[in-house]
């Protein structure tokens, strides 16, 4: 899917993290969040890029 870094209902991320995702070309909906309430951090994006397993598909 396209790397937009846009805010949507599928993930939680701060504005700076959304911008970082766009800069890194990472689709946030594939990143596994580490924050308590599901917040994605910059580090989560880095580990996704480093090859961490992608988040289980959201489609239920």
């Amino acid at each position: 899917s396209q790397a937009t870094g846009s805010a949507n209902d599928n993930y939680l991320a701060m504005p700076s993290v959304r911008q970082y995702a766009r800069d890194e070309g990472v689709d946030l909906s594939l990143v596994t969040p580490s924050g308590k309430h599901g917040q994605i951090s910059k580090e989560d994006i880095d580990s996704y890029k480093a090859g961490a397993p992608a988040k289980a598909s959201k489609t239920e």
Partner: protein
Amino acid sequence: MAENVIEKDTVIIGSGPGGYVAAIRASELGQNVTVIEKSDTVGGVCLNVGCVPSKALITAGHRLQQAKDSATYGITTSDAVIDFAKTQAWKDEKVVARMTSGVEMLLKKHHVELINGEAYLDNDKQLRVMPSGPRQFMDNGGGQTIKFKNLILATGSRPIEIRGFKFGTRVIDSTGGLNLPAVPKEFVIIGGGYVGTELAGAYADLGAHVTILEGSPQIIPNFEKDMVSIVKKNLEKKGVTIITNAMAKNSEESDDGVKVTYEIDGKPTTIDADYCMVTVGRRPNTDNFGLELTNVKLTDKGLVEVDKQGRTSVDNIWAIGDIVAGPALAHKAFFEAKTVAGAISDKNTENDYIGVPAVCFTDPELATVGITQTEAKDKGIEVNVAKFPFAGNARAVSLDAAEGFVKLIADKETGTLLGGQIVGPGASDLISELSVAVNCQLNAEDIALTIHPHPTLGEPIQEAADILIGYPTHI
């Protein structure tokens, strides 16, 4: 004519909140920027005849009321008198001129070229600037042709005129309403949106008898009923007559006033007023400057179609502010301006905000960001809602301003804050925290566990978050 063509890098039409901020940011990002503005002063509607002067009149109204009535605190005053010419001079010189000249300085500081004139588009690549205003810069009357690499449209919007109410001397738009020479005795305002209602409150404070004629069942319809009802009560306390479901029909100007006729259920009534201000909405300035000669696509509402970065259907033409979709507010224009400036400078910027806050400077103030309870319901989002009243807030009580509440809307499952509304003292100041909460997708627990100082008007936000996490404190 070829020798007459100038080539420019980034050209911006309009120096309102959209245009001037785009200019500043684009210049910071290394662009060569030219702004074309047809008015004599920069700053657009917002600084000249919008956000800023309206707030000045509201301040003056508050001060007059406070001077008149502080009996609660044991203070009595003899007659408080207003010299409205002085009020207007303060507004014009100390507020508006100060801000517009500030923006002009900022443009200079950022080496932005400012051309005073009216822009007409020829095609997707070039425009002409025609002389306008007193500070003409051109020698040839036919206008100066400019070829641009990037063009940012920031032409803003203008008041809508309605049938039967042609703008004149006594039938006026918001600009006229901001520049009245004297406080009217009878003032009719057609349209109880935020612009009309803010000025209704201001002029009522300043001594006018104000009548609001609103076509729909509620004034300020973009705010929820439980919030507006508090403002409505306050307006009525100020002596404002609010007539809803009223259809403005006709106006008849005379030398010293205007007869305004409206209908309710087909039954006509006439009011004699000094002035009748029509504030029923604004339309985008996307006509009359050659936009139809380009390949820029408009929506059926006359707005410019743009993508997430602000790019129009033409690759090198961008649009921001009141001429694109979304709330017609200055800070939305600011954000879009920064996004476009980034985009033309190859940054991965995007208009990815989650909520645009909106404020209405009534008594008490109204503010909102993100979704409301009603919107959540309409969208089928399951939410928890918490409401904390200012009556339980020590600071509000110590200000004798304990009306209103804070409402927080959180996702039912995750607790993520999706929206917040405030009606009460300081709402315009307090909403920024909620904008941070919503746009940073914070959780109710994050707010509940953040210390808010005591005694301040910000505490109700923490209190509402306490309710959301299941442990209310001062309620």
